[in-house]
C-alpha cells in the first residue's frame, strides 16, 4: 500500500514534468519561429514582393545582402547609428554616473527637491518637448544633423540616475569616511574608490545607452525628417516599410536581411553582458 502510493506520486510528478516540457517546447517554438522566418526570408532569391504565399524561398541566395550593401543607403544608416550610439554611450554614462554619485553621496539643500523635480519631469511625455527642441536645434543649425540627435539623446540623461544611484547607495559609506580621514578629496573617492566598485552598474548603463539609439524612432524621425543620408537604421528601415512601391518590388526580403545585420552585434553584445543586465534591472528594483 505504502509502496504503491509512493510510486503513484512519482508517476504524477513525471506527468507534471512532461507537461512542463511540452509547454516549454511550445513556448520556445512560438518564440523562435518568427526569427527563423526572418532569417529564411532574408535568403529569398526571387523578388516576389508582398504577394508571396510561401515561406521557403524558391531560390536560396545572398542577393539581398549584396543589394543591401551596394544598392541601398543601409551602410550609411548603419554607420550613423553606430556613431550616434558610441558617442551617446560615452557622454550618457558619464552624466549618469556623476548625477548618481552626487545624489547618493553628497548632502545638499536642493537634493530632495531635485530628485522630485526629475520624477515629475519624467512624467511628461518626452515627445511633448520635441517641437521646442526642434526649433532650438534649428536655430543653431543642428536639425538634419547627427550632432543634434546626439545632443537630444544625451541632454536629459541625468533623469536616468535612478538605478545607478540605487547601486551606489549599497556601497558602504564607511569606505568614503575612511578615505576622507586619509585626506582624500571627494573627487578622488569618486574616481578611485566608488567607480572601480561600480563595474556591474557601469556596464549596465553602457549596455542600455548603447542599445537605445538602435531602436529609437520617435526623436530621430522628427529631427532627420526628409534627409535620407542622416537616417538611423530604425528610421531608414521604417521608410522602406512605409513605401508600398518598394515593398512590392521585393524590398521585404531586403528588409529582413537588414534586420539580420542589425541584430547580430546587439545580440552578441547582449548575450555576452546578459548577467550585468539582469543585475542592473533587479538591483535597481530591489532597492525601490
Amino acid at each position, binding site marked *: 500500500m505504502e509502496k504503491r502510493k509512493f510510486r503513484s506520486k512519482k508517476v504524477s510528478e513525471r506527468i507534471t514534468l512532461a507537461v512542463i516540457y511540452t509547454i516549454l517546447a511550445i513556448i520556445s517554438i512560438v518564440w523562435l519561429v*518568427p526569427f527563423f522566418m526572418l532569417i529564411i526570408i532574408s535568403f529569398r532569391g526571387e523578388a516576389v514582393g508582398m504577394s508571396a504565399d510561401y515561406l521557403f524561398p524558391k531560390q536560396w541566395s545572398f542577393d539581398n545582402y549584396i543589394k543591401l550593401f551596394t544598392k541601398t543607403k543601409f551602410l550609411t544608416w548603419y554607420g550613423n547609428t553606430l556613431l550616434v550610439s558610441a558617442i551617446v554611450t560615452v557622454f550618457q554614462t558619464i552624466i549618469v554616473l556623476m548625477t548618481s554619485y552626487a545624489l547618493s553621496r553628497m548632502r545638499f539643500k536642493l537634493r530632495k527637491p531635485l530628485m522630485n523635480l526629475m520624477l515629475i519631469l519624467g512624467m511628461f511625455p518626452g515627445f511633448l518637448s520635441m517641437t521646442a527642441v526642434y526649433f532650438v536645434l534649428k536655430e543653431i543649425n543642428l536639425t538634419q544633423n547627427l550632432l543634434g540627435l546626439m545632443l537630444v539623446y544625451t541632454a536629459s540623461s541625468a533623469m536616468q540616475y535612478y538605478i545607478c544611484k540605487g547601486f551606489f547607495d549599497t556601497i558602504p559609506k564607511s569606505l568614503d569616511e575612511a578615505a576622507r580621514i586619509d585626506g582624500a578629496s571627494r573627487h578622488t573617492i569618486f574616481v578611485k574608490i566608488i567607480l572601480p566598485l561600480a563595474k556591474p552598474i557601469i556596464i549596465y548603463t553602457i549596455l542600455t545607452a548603447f542599445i537605445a539609439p538602435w531602436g529609437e524612432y520617435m526623436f530621430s524621425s522628427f529631427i532627420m525628417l526628409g534627409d535620407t543620408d542622416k537616417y538611423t537604421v530604425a528610421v531608414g528601415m521604417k521608410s522602406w516599410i512605409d513605401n508600398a512601391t518598394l515593398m512590392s518590388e521585393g524590398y521585404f526580403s531586403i528588409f529582413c536581411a537588414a534586420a539580420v545585420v542589425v541584430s547580430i552585434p546587439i545580440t552578441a553584445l547582449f548575450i555576452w553582458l546578459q548577467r550585468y543586465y539582469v543585475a542592473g534591472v533587479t538591483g*535597481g528594483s530591489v532597492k525601490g
Partner: protein
Amino acid sequence: MVDLEYLKLSPFGKFWFNFKAFFKRLPSSFAAFFKAIPKKLYSLWLAFAGIFINIGRAAKDGDWKTRSSFVVMGFGLITRKQYLRGILYLFFEVLFILYMVFFGWKYLAKMGSLGEVVRAEVWDDAVGDYVINNYDNSLLILLYSLLTIFIMTAFVYMWYQNVKGNLLSQQYVEAHLHLPTTKDDINSYVNENYHKSLLAIPMLGLVLFTILPIFFMIFIAFTNYDQYHMPPAQLFEWVGVDNFQTVLGGGIGSNSKTFAYTFKEVLLWTIVWALFATVSNYVLGMIVAILINKKGIKFKKLWRTILVMTIAIPQFVSLMFMSQLLSEQGLINNILLKWNWIDKPVPFLSDGTLAKVVIIAVNIWIGIPYSMLICTGILMNIPEDLYESARIDGAGPFKAYMQITLPYMLHVTMPYLITQFIGNLNNFNVIFLLTGAVPEPMDMHYANRTDLLITWLYKLTLSGKQYGLASVIGIFTFIVVAVFSLIFYNRSKSVKNEEEFM
C-alpha cells in the same frame, strides 16, 4: 482597516484598496492642500523676508566695498583678494547686461502680443528690389522670452548670492578670520561643493532640453499655433483656454466634437492597454520563470537562452517584421488564403477590436522574456523552507503560489511593475510600429482605434501640425501618468509595513 487585514488582501485586492483609498482621500487631500496654503504662504513670506533682511543688513552694515557690489557685482570680493569669485560675478553681470540689451529685451517686450509684424515682401528703394521686411516670428518670441525669464531668474539669484557673499567676506575680515582664498575656493569644488561640479553639466542639459521645452509647450497650449498659423509666414497669438475646451468637448467648430470623442477613446484605450500589457507580461513571465525553475527540469540554461535571444534582437526590428507579417497583404494572410482556411484576409491590425487583441498578444511575445529574466533571479531568492512548511501544512502548488510566490514577487518587484506601467502608458514603439500606418477612421481626428495618447500626440504634431491641441494632449498625458504614479506610490501606513516582509 488595520495593517493585518491589509496584508491579508490578495495583490489585486491591495491595488483596489489603494485605488479606492486614493479617490476617497482626494477630497480630504484637497482640503489639506488648501488648509496648508496659509502656512505655506507664511513660510514663503518668512523665506522672502529673510532675503530682504539679508539685503537690508548688507545695505546697513556694509562698508563702501560691500555697498558698491550692489551695482558692480563681486566688487567687494575682488578688493578683498577673493579674485576668482569676484571676477566670476562681474563676468556674469557683464554677460547678463549684454544679453539683455542686445537680445533678451527685444523678445521679452513682444511676449504679450507674440509679434505684430507679419512677414511680407516690401519694396526697398535702396536695394531697388522687393526685400523681406523685419517680421516677427511668434515662435522665436515665445521661446526666447522664456529663455530670457529663465536667465533673469538665474541673475536675480546670483545677485542675491553676490550680496550675501560680499557681506560675509566683510564680516570675516572684521572678525580677523581666515578668508577663503582662490585656492581654497577651487579646492572646495572637489570637496564640500563637489556636487556643484558634478551636477553643473547634467543640470544645464536638463534645463535647456527638458525644462525649457516643457514650459514652452505648456505655453503653446494657450495659443492657436496650427497649420494656419505657422511661423515664419504667419503669426500666432494667445487664445486662452480654447484648446482645452476643444479637447474636453465644450469647444466651437465642426472639429471639436470629433476631437473630444477621439480624446475619450484614446484616453480609455491608453489606460486599458497599459493595464493589460503590464499585468499580462508580468504574470505570464513569472509563470514561465517558475516552470523553468522547477526542480527536475533539465537544460534550464537552454530554455532561458532561447527566450533571452529574442530580447537581444532590437525591438523595432521584430515589431516592424510583425507588422508586415500580420498586414492584410502579409505572409500569414497569404498562407492562410492558400490553404483555404479563410476566404478573405483577416484584418489583424486594421480592425479596431481585433487589432487591440493582436497588439497585446504581440506585446506578450516581446515582453515575456524580460519579465522572465527579472523574475528568475528573484524566484531563486525565495527561501525553500517556506515552500516546505507550506507543503507540510497541506497547501497545493496553486495555494503556495498565491500565498508565497506572488506576494513575495510583488513586494520585491513593485517598483519595476510601476515603471513598467508608466512606460506602457507612453509606449510609443509597440503601437506606432505595429499599427501606426493603419488609416484613421472617419469619426476619429488624426488617430486610429489603437493610438495611445503619445502616438496621437506624434501624429497631431507631425501630420496634423496642430501644435496647440497637441500640447493640450501632452498636458493631459502628464496628468494621467501623474495620477497613476500617485496611486501607486502613495503608500498608506499599512503598505509601508510591507517593507518588513520576511
